[in-house]
């Protein structure tokens, strides 16, 4: 955190930045692997979503807010939450429209399943993708919101300004 004072954005030194850059794509690939192999091995959409979001959060920590937000899809993270929820609701509710119980999976037991490598094309996997999007959106979205709030705070006070005293906060002078 050597440059913290100078830039006010919490940017780290060269080593964490190199590691963050090196780890970004492999972490995303690992997340996709956890998602794809969820039905055959340890892991599911939830773990995959957290791994992917940690990769993005690492960029926030290493490069600061402005650099990290240049990454594609980061700006859409908040919307991912609701796209994921919508996918989950559709997987739950569509069978009802077709006259089957809630969360009935297609293809049914014993029926033929199309495989793409380890990936099975079945509706629970689609639900898992929804969970992935939602968890990714949650983690990246909340870190983004916190980062924005910190940035606004620093803009308001100036990066080098001392923190306000307790008595000022008690009077409501901070907001």
């Amino acid at each position, binding site marked *: 955190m050597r440059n913290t004072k100078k830039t006010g954005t919490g940017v780290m030194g060269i080593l964490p930045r190199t590691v963050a850059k090196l780890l970004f794509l492999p972490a995303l690939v690992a997340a996709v692997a956890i998602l794809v192999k969820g039905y055959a091995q340890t*892991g599911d959409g939830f*773990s995959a979503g957290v791994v992917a979001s940690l990769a993005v959060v690492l960029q926030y920590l290493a490069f600061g807010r402005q650099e990290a937000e240049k990454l594609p899809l980061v700006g859409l993270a908040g919307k991912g939450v609701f796209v994921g*929820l919508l996918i989950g609701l559709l997987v739950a509710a569509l069978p009802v429209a077709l006259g089957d119980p809630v969360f009935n999976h297609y293809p049914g037991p014993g029926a033929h399943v199309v495989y793409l490598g380890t990936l*099975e094309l079945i509706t629970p996997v689609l639900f898992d993708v929804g969970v992935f999007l939602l968890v990714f959106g949650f983690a990246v979205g909340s870190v983004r919101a916190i*980062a924005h709030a910190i940035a606004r705070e620093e803009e308001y006070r100036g990066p080098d300004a001392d923190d306000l005293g307790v008595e000022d906060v008690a009077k409501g002078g901070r907001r």
Partner: protein
Amino acid sequence: MYKGGIQGLNRLSDYVHRGEVRDLRSRVAAILVPAGLLVGAGILLTPTVEAYRVGEIKTRDLPLLLALVAVAVAAVTATFTRRHVSLALVLSSAGFVLALVYAFFGAPDVALVAVLVETVVTLLLLGTSKLIPYKVLRSQADLPLGGKRWRRIFFSSVAGAFAFAVVWGALSQPAAETTVAEEHIRLAPEAHAKDVVTAILADFRGLDTLGEITVVALVVLGIATLLNRGRLP
């Protein structure tokens, strides 16, 4: 007589209500104390002859025991830690070692999720503590503990002892009736799944998962309202 009884009950109810709504701690206590009393009465009044058994400790359990000792040390340290950042780190280290315990227990799915959740929660805790001015954090950490130290130690020891008795009792007498777990394992291949945990989460108990992810979506809305003036982050 009747009128006096009603008035007395009314006064008692007012007294309890005033105590309950005083602050967050008394609200939590209003839930935990009755629950603790009921559990304690249950433990003390039921016949407990041979209900608590001490299993034998094998050499292969040593790593598990070591990890549990580390969890205990981290948990006790958390009660002494005053600074917010150190508190976040101590709590997350307890969580990380618990993940190790799950791994030793043969639950890789739970261990993976525990490690990931601990990492994200620690980052979020550190991020939110950055939002609070340093002076406020420091003055809170320097607040005196108050003179009721022994009362707190007494309450936490009693609570810990009862929790220990409940867990011990549950582990000594596993429920005899068969659970749905075997059914889930048997049906996993029919749901085209090789990992039964994922099959349960996304298929058998999908409705539970849907409820949980809805809660997460609501949390995002809450964060957007609090920090982002209602705009999605």
